[in-house]
């Protein structure tokens, strides 16, 4: 669990505002921060990382206090066990991919971690290349791998995919999700891309003028208000198959695959991998028992 209760005066003159957040993030959660430019998203990340000391407040990971203005505790960034990835890759240009990773590795980290990350991030073939010979997406994969070499408890991502084209962004999203799940990270990511937010995060905090104005599952925050259908789930589109004048869409909901029939105009712009809401009236489903207590036994 990450607890962040901080106060920090930001900006100057008429643009002055106060970052004032009270946020608790469950361990293993992937939280996205969404909001207009200048709403305090990056400042919040920097505050958590230890790069921007709050005026007052409290930041803790599990039972370890990172910052406490009353007790005058302020751990430096390198003691907070975080990984931080920015929009610009900030790789060492004179080092190869593998040298960049080795430089970031702490002595206590297991020796195979670099090979594992090269594998997870699909970088093995590029390990001896220098950053300036890599594409934007490849560089960002190296930056992500380098942040993960430090075996962080908390991964902070500040719009890491904003500079990439759509294909690259989709593939990097898969890498982020994969690493987040496999390594059991708690991840906080700034993003402006609603599709990305829906695909990656379980919780979204919407920020405005330094405050969190809304907090909840992105499907609830961004859906067109509410629809009255009570049989409602969020899932991931697996594939769409055209059949006569309709489409059959397979959607993964939890561990189950359900199929939904839809008219072509209903699914315009929906692609495999997209997060969707499947809704129906509560009147339609049938229910029957497959196990449990029997009254006659």
């Amino acid at each position, binding site marked *: 669990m990450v607890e962040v209760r901080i106060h920090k005066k930001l900006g100057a003159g008429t643009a002055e505002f106060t970052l004032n957040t009270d946020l608790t993030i469950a361990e293993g959660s992937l939280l996205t921060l969404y909001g207009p430019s200048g709403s305090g998203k990056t400042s919040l990340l920097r505050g958590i990382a230890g790069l921007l000391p709050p005026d007052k407040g409290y930041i803790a990971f599990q039972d370890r206090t990172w910052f406490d203005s009353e007790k005058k505790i302020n751990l430096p960034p390198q003691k907070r066990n975080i990984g931080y990835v920015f929009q610009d890759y900030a790789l060492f240009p004179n080092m190869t991919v593998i040298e960049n990773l080795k430089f970031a590795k702490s002595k206590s980290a297991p020796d195979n971690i670099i090979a594992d990350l090269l594998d997870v991030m699909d970088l093995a073939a590029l390990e001896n290349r220098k950053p300036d010979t890599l594409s934007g997406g490849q560089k960002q994969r190296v930056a992500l791998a380098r942040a993960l070499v430090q075996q962080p408890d908390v991964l902070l991502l500040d719009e890491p995919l904003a500079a990439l084209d759509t294909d690259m962004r989709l593939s990097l999203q898969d890498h982020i999700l994969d690493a987040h799940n496999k390594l059991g990270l708690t991840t906080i990511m700034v993003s402006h891309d609603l599709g990305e937010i829906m695909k990656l995060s379980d919780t979204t905090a919407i920020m405005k003028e330094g405050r969190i104005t809304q907090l909840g599952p992105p499907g609830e925050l961004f859906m*067109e*208000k509410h629809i*009255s259908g*009570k049989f409602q789930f969020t899932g991931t589109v697996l594939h769409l198959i055209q059949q*006569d*004048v309709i489409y059959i869409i397979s959607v993964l909901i939890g561990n189950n695959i359900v199929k939904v029939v839809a*008219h072509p*105009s*209903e699914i315009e712009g929906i692609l495999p991998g997209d997060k969707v809401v499947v*809704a129906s009236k509560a009147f339609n489903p049938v229910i029957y028992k497959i196990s449990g207590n029997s009254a006659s036994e």
Partner: protein
Amino acid sequence: MDIRYVNRLTGHIKNLQVEGQITLVTLLLEGDLEMKTIVIDTPESAEYLALNREVNILFKETEVVIGLEKTNGISLANKIDCKVQTLQSGTLLSGVDLECLPGNIRAIVSTEALSDMGIEPGKKVLAMIKLNEVMLSPK
């Protein structure tokens, strides 16, 4: 983000009849057409359930029944006079675009039924939707 519902009409809430957790909503659409839906919500659980409130009326294209003329002996609560605009014929299923007073409606029905009934562009038909197939969303 918008729900791209194929059949989306708008109307105002004319009457609410609440029984326990269920509400029978009577809607008034353009052309004095009434539609009814039943939802598992009440004015207490869903603030948009208020008299005169404008709402989206959503139903799936596969839940639209097409009839040839005025029929009284049918339990379907929602009957809308329409004119067939175009057909998209498939082997088993076909799409029918209907021009109706409160807005256009699209139906997906069996190709066999369409040809049996002699449905073709220009023909006047009755589009019918079961009470419990209609969803609402606040505008």
